[in-house]
């Protein structure tokens, strides 16, 4: 009912509401399924196979009850690892999805900003070796914060240059965009080789972020907690900007129908450039966190991550930041649980999630409605 007491014919039914909430429910569902898989794997006894146990249902309850306490700490650890990985993927993918939605640009060179951010962070952290070697958490965080700020500034500047020199001349042709942005990625990798050398660089996490907190027997890595906090903060900021500011409104409208936004008097070109720069800077931030997570940087790391990033953007729905966020969490969790239960299936599991989601929603979980189709 509306406030007027009139039945609202547009109010969605219960099915539609569940459908709308389903993308949010998928994240805890995957976490639950991951826990279930871990329990099932731990259920067989020392001399017993899983197949044999599955043939005797009477034993299932007892074995599950016995396995649950043993597996719970691992599940918590893996869940945190999956969330942290998801948050870092989200940071890299959020800019890409907005750039695609707003500018209709498929930027295969996005990975260059990830690599660039990582290498810039390595240089900054090397200059502040005293801060990172200290066991003072505040100094460690200051070093990482400074590295992140510089990396975002450099990646954002590189993004502005990339947009002006490579993306804009390609125009609206997707084939041209793919070709020139892949070319741009190769050039960026070679420039990194020129500046930082061709060898991979190993880095240490700051001292206070190397350890873990033990919570009910589960080891929670401090750095992963930091990554989760950083991802949540960026997501919240993006959501607030998109939801409550005029420029956010223009971006959301522009993702649906840029032409109409211009016809309403808004200069979308400037907004597009700003979004491209912001997306590049966020990719740089993702590169910083990923570098410290892996403790090694290479010029190809961005390109390697692009597979996961594109899968995330497609699952989430092109142009949707929230969809991108949820998809990244789903990918992170799925990869970590699968790597624990059956490591050989870790990569396949990501593709499986992609296929299942696209079978369910071919345009992605939260694909934008097109204004022109209204």
């Amino acid at each position: 009912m509306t406030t007027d007491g009139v039945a609202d014919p547009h109010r969605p039914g219960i099915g539609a509401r569940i459908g709308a909430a389903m993308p949010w429910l998928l994240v805890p569902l995957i976490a639950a399924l991951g826990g279930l898989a871990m329990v099932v794997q731990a259920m067989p006894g020392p001399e017993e196979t899983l197949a044999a146990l599955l043939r005797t249902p009477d034993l299932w309850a007892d074995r599950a009850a016995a396995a649950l306490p043993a597996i719970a700490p691992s599940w918590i650890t893996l869940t945190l690892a999956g969330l942290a990985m998801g948050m870092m993927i989200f940071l890299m993918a959020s800019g890409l999805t907005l750039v695609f939605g707003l500018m209709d640009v498929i930027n295969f060179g996005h990975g260059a900003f990830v690599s660039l951010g990582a290498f810039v962070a390595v240089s900054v952290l090397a200059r502040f070796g005293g801060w990172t070697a200290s066991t003072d958490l505040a100094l460690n965080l200051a070093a990482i914060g400074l590295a992140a700020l510089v990396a975002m500034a450099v990646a954002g500047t590189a993004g502005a240059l990339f947009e002006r020199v490579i993306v804009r001349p390609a125009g609206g042709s997707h084939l041209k965009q793919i070709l020139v942005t892949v070319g741009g990625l190769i050039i960026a990798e070679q420039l990194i080789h020129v500046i930082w050398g061709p060898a991979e660089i190993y880095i240490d996490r700051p001292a206070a972020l190397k350890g873990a907190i033990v919570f009910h027997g589960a080891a929670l890595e401090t750095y992963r907690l930091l990554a989760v906090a950083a991802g949540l903060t960026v997501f919240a900021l993006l959501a607030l900007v998109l939801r409550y500011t005029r420029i956010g409104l223009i971006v959301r409208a522009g993702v649906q129908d840029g032409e109409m936004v211009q016809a309403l008097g808004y200069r979308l070109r400037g907004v597009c450039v700003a979004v491209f720069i912001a997306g590049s800077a966020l990719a740089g931030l993702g590169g910083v966190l990923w570098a410290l997570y892996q403790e090694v940087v290479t010029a190809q790391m961005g390109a390697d991550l692009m597979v996961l990033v594109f899968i995330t953007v497609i699952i989430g729905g092109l142009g949707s930041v929230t969809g991108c966020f949820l998809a990244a969490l789903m990918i992170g969790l799925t990869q970590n649980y699968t790597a624990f239960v059956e490591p050989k299936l870790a990569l396949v599991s990501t593709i499986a999630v992609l296929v299942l989601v696209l079978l369910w929603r071919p345009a992605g979980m939260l694909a934008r409605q097109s204004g022109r189709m209204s």
Partner: protein
Amino acid sequence: MADEDGNGGGTGGLRLRVDRLAAAMEAARARARAEADTAPPADAAQERRAVPPEIAGDPVPTSAPTGPHGDAAEGPGDMDATPPDAVPRVAPSAEESDRSDPPATERQVRHHPPAAPEPGHTRAEARGMAPPDRSPLLLTPDFHLPEPAPEPSGDRADTRGTAVELGDAPGILVPAAPVAPAPPVSPATAAALLALKGVATDIGRYRILEDVTLDVPRGAVTMLLGRNGAGKTTTLRTVMGLWRARAGEIVLAGERIDRWATHRIARAGIGYVPESMSIFGDLTVAENIALGARTGPVSGDRLDWLTGLFPPLATFWRSPAGNLSGGQKQMLALARALVERRRLYLIDEPTKGLAPVIVETVVSALRDLKLQGATILMVEQNFAVARALGDACAVIDGGRVAWSGTMAALADDPALQARLMGLDLGDAA
């Protein structure tokens, strides 16, 4: 992200504005509820009826209850009704025509007692004005004209000219369509706000516009007619800069705009309602309206006026626009263009694919806009609607203006209609 492009607002600004809109909406709803509680419900729908029944194909009323002086609109439900001739009829000046404020005149006239006409005369005639145009309006060429209704002793029950109060706010009237349209504006005498001179536009390899020369006079509604594919939509899109003119000039108020970017053209004071409506489906109705108000907050009066024209927008104010029906989307597209005063409105087939009852609402709104002296260039396939609203007219064929003149001239000449558009309205024309 700083907005350096003059896109307006900053963090929090939008929220305030949307909240202000929401507060105004709530007030309007409360007023509407209060009115609904006090007014006899049977007449409410009639009062809000802004377009004569003929336009929707409804049967024409053959008689109507009359008041003590032969007035139709003096029953219990018509306490707030304004006499049909109370709405402004004089074409505004050029300066006024650039400002499409909610009509202040309508607000004032409500407080004047209606003048009683002599028996047998209409109210307009009693004031020495031209008798109202009651020629029937047709939706489709094959619609058969019903027999004219016998004229009662006074005004017949025609609500076209009544003004409807939105809620109980004093002075806030939503004027319905006038009994008599604004005096026709001769394109030859009125100053052209927009002029197209030899405009040619290509889309890809195809030449869509060959040589479009067209003047859009100030304060008038210019209809752009023609068969499908003639170039009407392309003309509007070319004016908006959405497609570039290959040749020719487009002049708005003395300034050439054919090389301007679309956003600059819009900022020059052009409101555009595209054929596809281009509603932002993921945004709420309120956010769609907020996007239309680029330069600043929307006044409560303006909002009341808009929601009076399009009541469903108030009902679904916070709903995603993608959930609206086709007619409601069209209302939203119009409201988004009307939320700010514009010098010129480009409206592309606003009645396309709409149910007759929605066509009534849309035509009523456009008539209201016209009464305010707005300058409109409108593409329309529905000849009845074009005739009801248009002052001037241009017929496009093969990317050229094949004919231009007054709407009345085209409407009164069946042979010309048949020659230009293949229309055969028979006796109805």
